[in-house]
């Protein structure tokens, strides 16, 4: 992956909440068409990483690049328009809109006439959403809402999809389904950067990963390297 121009790059990023130093000199690269997993325990700075990409938190130091474009200092709207689609933590579907309207909201930044094709594409990826297109999103199960959140993000035709804990609150079977879909989406050409607590599942589908601890990247490498590292095995896979 090294020879490729990275799609997303963090260069020595530092972020703060007030005086609280969260991300400390963090660098990531996510190459085009890769799946990259970001692992870390609670409070390590995973969600802050996602917020920093989206411009919800601005770095105090360092820079963030999306392809050739520098995206730190830009508004969320601009960043989304440049091709970053978030699947936020806790899904955040619009509860009182129908499934179909939620999907249409995902295509908000687009002005082309191929939105219906993409809706059909999401439906073929998640047949369950097609069955429930007129149902209010808030009345669906957690797994269905997660599918909808991913489908909504796909509607933006993103270059980079960032997922914040897609397995949160899902049963093991549903988690597997969601991860299968992430692989499928990646195969269709979308780059994936995901935050995940479920290290084993995440590293199984990722090509590379980073391990974050109290705001610092303490380990990075290919998924295989991470899976076989003692540190990851002890801290995340429960082995002694």
């Amino acid at each position: 992956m090294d020879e490729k121009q990275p799609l997303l790059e963090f260069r020595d990023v530092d972020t703060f909440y007030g005086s609280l130093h969260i991300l400390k000199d963090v660098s990531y690269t996510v190459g085009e068409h890769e799946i990259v997993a970001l692992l870390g325990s609670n409070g390590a700075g995973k969600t802050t990483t996602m917020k920093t990409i989206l411009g919800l938190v601005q770095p105090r130091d360092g820079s963030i690049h999306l392809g050739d474009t520098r995206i730190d200092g830009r508004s969320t709207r601009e960043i989304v328009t440049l091709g970053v689609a978030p699947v936020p933590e806790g899904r955040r579907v619009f509860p009182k809109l129908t499934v179909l309207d939620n999907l249409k909201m995902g295509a908000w930044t687009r002005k082309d006439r191929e939105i219906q094709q993409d809706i059909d594409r999401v439906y073929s990826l998640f047949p369950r959403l097609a069955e429930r297109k007129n149902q209010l999103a808030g009345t669906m199960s957690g797994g269905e809402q997660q599918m909808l959140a991913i489908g909504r993000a796909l509607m933006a035709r993103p270059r980079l999809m960032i997922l914040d804990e897609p397995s949160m609150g899902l049963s093991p079977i549903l988690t597997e389904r969601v991860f299968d879909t992430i692989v499928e989406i990646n195969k269709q050409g979308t780059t994936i950067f995901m935050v995940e607590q479920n290290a084993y599942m995440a590293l199984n589908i990722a090509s590379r990963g980073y391990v974050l601890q109290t705001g610092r990247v303490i380990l990075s490498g290919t998924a295989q390297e991470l899976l076989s590292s003692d540190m990851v095995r002890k801290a995340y896979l429960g082995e002694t």
Partner: protein
Amino acid sequence: MAARWHALTDAYHDTPLLRRFAVLLVVVLAFLFPVFMGSVGVDDATFAEVYVLLALGLNIVVGFAGLLDLGYAAFFAIGAYTAALLASSHFAVNRTSFHSLLLTVGPGGIHVNFFVLIPLSALVAAFFGILFGAPTLRLRGDYLAIVTLGFGEIVPKVVENLGDGNSLGLPNITNGVNSITGVDSPPNIDLGPIHWTFQTNDPRPWYYLGLIIVIISVIIIYRLRDSRLGRSWVAIREDEIAAAHAGINITGTRLTAFALGAAFSGFGGLLEASRLANVSYDQFLFTVSVTILTMVILGGIGSIPGVIVGGIVIAYMTQTWLTTVASWVHSLGDGLHKGPEPVSTIGAWLQSLPVTSAKPMIFGIILVGIMLLRPAGLWPEQRRARELHPDTEKTLEEEQAELYTVRTGEI
């Protein structure tokens, strides 16, 4: 333009036949209303039209965008004063004089044609909406409500204090506590069979004018609701963070809701100013803001027909129905007074009961009752085709069963 027109006709054709018929019936009845009603009834109906316009406008802010505005009367005041200042003898221009169909300027004051004032009053109100909204719309919920409450207080106060000999040393802008009188009526209309002469003794032309403005506003608001902008309002109302993640500019979108909501109160203000020919700062106090908000909530937040019904109900309740109730109580007292003791004592008490001064209390009781019985409003927002598919539960069961058989198969 053509595409927009097609969208409008499509929306019409998508509406079920029964609904189309019902809407048509309501419009026809509304046009025939003055034929059956005396002039007092028509006058009350015109008052209701003004309030329906205001409620429709506030519904954009509160219902669509989910921003609680407690000072909406400020924009009503701005619309009314725009009309009053630009279509009365208030601003006398002594040096020059100019006369034309659309604008007359001279020692007799500035007189802008009513039909020019229709877009102008909306634009001025929308401008103030942006002016008030731009620095404050980053606030949310309760905090925004307090700020709007402040604007609702500021505007009438400023108007009250910008009269003759104000302490700021400014010229007489608003005529202060003396109010502005002699606001122009719309020009007379002679179109084929239609002859409308706008006079104070005949409310019918006012009623028809108001009705046309209401109908056009309703069409515009329906189109707004179903537009890209309308969807972004709903998205922000539902989940601000998710809306931002979809690429919506939160503050800018809220600002459009504020400005467009204000624009419709500009229509209301214009109609009210020219109908009463008189504008005073105390027509726009806090109670007016609350009354309009009550119309929106009682009718059904976010529901266009609901808000219209809410506006009509409250306007009539405050204008006429409570007076009618008072006369019922008094005539009941008259009847009972003729009866034997102790009924006659009760009758005498009812005869002199000051029902009219208890209006606010009765009004309050009715509101509490309606909200308890119909908490979502008289005509809640209809979600389009939101019913569950009847077989949804079954598919869920099947899918889970299938999942588990796959699992056991693997093991």
